[in-house]
């Protein structure tokens, strides 16, 4: 309980970012939906098309809608220039505003459809122009219904805004996603409580406005609006404008990435930089974000870049792969590959030691023979990755079932018997702690996954920054990394990624 309170107290920044994002999205939704509703009320085809579109948007999962804005904005750069942000606030704002559209639009159109015909004829009959009719009759009569739609939209937007973490926009989703990855349930709960509390407060204030419209009590309308705006203004003041020389460090959605981001951030802070983190980014998003300037520094892996960015499926060997990557990044994206951190986080297939022994499985070739009776579990992207496809065809792996788990639950799935084989990471501390056997890749079908520090083209021009990070090259052994990962992932005596990063720094002698 006190854990949750501590987390809540430290969440001011995320809360204010969340408030500003949700408020901006709601405002954009309102100023789009209202003129559209007026137009729709005057033209049945417009009404059908607008409501159809808004309903269609609503059927897209919020997470996918947020992610889809990344390629959309990327393609729009040909129109608006390279300065167009593709991650962070802008795509989150656009996706959430689209999401807010439907309830507002639908309520406004429905209110207009159900307005008594006699009243509308009376408005014409007493000599109102179209504008007067809208302002004096249609708007005030529809206001309570529109307000109810805005209320619904506000609650949805505040909830869905937690997902904007995945596209690099700070929000109350940060603690939820980070907590989920590191099995820190107090952190998850604190994020949920803050988000739900915010939704309830917004709902209550907008509800007061709605009642004010319905009962024609102006003071209620204005006090509801004033309090809501005061909340947004307070969030705006609390959000310090980030200065231009803040270094943004990106991290993918697993513990090792959180820890390494903190390790890099702590070094930069002691060198005098101010640092921000974008945690929980998708694997493909991270590299795009880095090359487009959305983030300044990331940690990636040779095999991942090899297949995803270079589109290669061959395996020229560890050093050749690294050299080729450095050259490719320099020439095609301008990104600086600072160097290898010293350990590998390779994909591997793992089984419980006792189960592997019972089935007599040591190599992937052994596994291929037993596979038709076994279930394989992978993280959400594993079965789509070229590495898996390469390994599968190299050994002719054909499992009875394949199941997806978030990487947090992958090891639990194995120990709990939900899966017989899982996709594991060689630097994961749980491999040793859970007594797992890494099945040997005798054919070298999995490429190597040396951890690399990448620096964006802009940040690479800063010699002091590069110098501050250079000591990290070759400094982290796989044992040190496993220990740090385990300290965050284990269920008892958990460390936060920042604590684990400090311990790791001590261990490697900084």
């Amino acid at each position, binding site marked *: 309980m006190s854990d949750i309170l501590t987390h809540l107290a430290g969440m001011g920044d995320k809360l204010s970012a969340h408030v500003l994002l949700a408020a901006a999205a709601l405002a954009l939704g309102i100023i789009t939906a209202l003129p559209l509703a007026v137009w729709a009320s005057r033209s049945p085809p417009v009404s059908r098309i607008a409501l159809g579109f808004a309903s269609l948007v609503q059927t897209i999962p919020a997470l996918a809608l947020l992610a889809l804005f990344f390629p959309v904005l990327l393609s729009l750069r040909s129109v608006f220039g390279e300065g167009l942000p593709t991650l962070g606030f802008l795509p989150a704002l656009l996706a959430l505003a689209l999401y807010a559209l439907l309830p507002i639009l639908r309520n406004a159109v429905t209110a207009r459809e159900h307005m*008594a015909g*006699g*009243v509308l*004829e*009376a*408005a*014409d*009959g*007493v*000599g*109102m*122009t179209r504008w*007067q009719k809208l302002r*004096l*009759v249609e708007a*005030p*009569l529809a206001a309570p219904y529109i307000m109810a739609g805005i209320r619904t939209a506000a609650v949805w937007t505040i909830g869905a805004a937690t997902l904007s973490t995945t596209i690099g926009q700070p929000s109350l989703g940060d603690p939820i996603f980070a907590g989920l990855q590191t099995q820190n349930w107090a952190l998850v709960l604190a994020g949920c409580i803050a988000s739900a509390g915010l939704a309830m407060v917004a709902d209550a204030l907008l509800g007061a406005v709605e009642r004010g419209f319905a009962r*024609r009590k102006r003071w209620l309308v204005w006090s509801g609006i004033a309090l809501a705006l005061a909340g947004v203004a307070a969030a705006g003041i609390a959000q310090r404008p980030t200065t231009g020389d803040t270094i943004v460090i990106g991290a993918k959605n697993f513990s090792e990435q959180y820890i390494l981001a903190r390790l890099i951030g702590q070094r930069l802070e002691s060198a005098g930089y101010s640092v921000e983190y974008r945690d929980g980014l998708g694997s493909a998003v991270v590299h795009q974000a880095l090359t487009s300037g959305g983030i300044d520094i990331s940690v990636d892996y040779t095999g991942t870049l090899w297949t995803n960015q270079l589109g290669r499926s061959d395996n020229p060997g560890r050093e050749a792969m690294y050299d080729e990557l450095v050259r490719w990044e320099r020439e095609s994206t301008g990104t600086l590959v600072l160097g290898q951190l010293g350990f590998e986080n390779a994909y591997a297939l793992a089984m419980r030691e006792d189960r592997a022994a019972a089935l007599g499985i040591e190599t992937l070739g052994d596994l291929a023979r037993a596979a038709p009776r076994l279930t394989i579990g992978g993280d959400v992207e594993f079965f789509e990755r070229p590495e898996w496809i390469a390994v599968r065809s190299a050994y002719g792996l054909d499992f009875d079932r394949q199941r997806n788990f978030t990487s947090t639950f992958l090891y639990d799935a194995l120990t709990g018997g939900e899966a017989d084989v899982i996709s594991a990471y060689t630097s994961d501390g749980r491999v040793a702690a859970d007594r797992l056997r890494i099945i040997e890749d005798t054919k070298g079908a999995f490429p190597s996954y040396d951890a690399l520090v990448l620096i964006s083209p802009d940040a690479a021009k800063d010699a002091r920054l590069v110098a501050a990070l250079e000591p990290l090259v070759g400094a982290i052994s796989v044992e040190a990394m496993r220990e740090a990962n385990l300290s965050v992932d284990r269920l008892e005596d958990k460390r936060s990624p920042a604590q684990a990063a400090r311990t790791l720094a001590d261990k490697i002698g900084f």
Partner: protein
Amino acid sequence: MDQPASPTPTGPHLRFENVSRSFAGVVAVAATDCAIAQGSFVALVGASGSGKSTLLKMVNRLGDPDQGRVIFEGRDVRDAPPAALRRRLGYVFQGVGLFPHMTVAENIGIGPRLAGKRASAERIAELLELVELEPEYAVRMPHELSGGQRQRIGVARALAGNPHLLLMDEPFGALDPVTRDGLGKRVRLLHERLGLTTIMVTHDMAEALLLADRVLVMDGGRIVADEPPQALLAGAGGDIAQGLVAVPREQAAALARLDAAR
């Protein structure tokens, strides 16, 4: 209140010239000519779908004719924007049509407000008095009033702009018989006192005979009879008009027999 110089009917005030209108191929008003003198109280009577409301709405342009034109005070009603025209005309709606979110005073004062001249409290009180309501009603909301009170507010609203012409579209249709009778008489008195020209659409021949000084009977989009009440009662106007007159006459006769049999 504007008082016309002469209370006696003079030359044509309103003229329909060969007006027609159809809805999706169905003729609502067919090539109709009609002149209405200033100061007259004209009732438009007919069954549902006879075209009486369609004809009335051509005057304030809630539905323009497909052909022909409507001349009011010497000018085609289409010469001015509809909103400006409507502010010069009084219009009482079928089913009242008060704005539910406005007070009685705001409803009555809406016409002057649209024209940019807010009605004073004295003016609202004066209009309320015309329809025999206390000034205290000004602050009430429409849902707090009875049906008869609401329609009286509707009449007061129609009169707020000092119109010369009052159009009423089945104004008393939704009221109980007692309220209906009282409000009909009140409107007739206002018509005389303010020197209005009044056109009232109704499906009730008894109401038309008792209130109007000229009854137009419509059927199938045409005016099939145009007679003063006395002439209709004397048998003029043709079969359709006589069919409509027969209903109240037979009711009156039946009531007289009941009375005699006491």
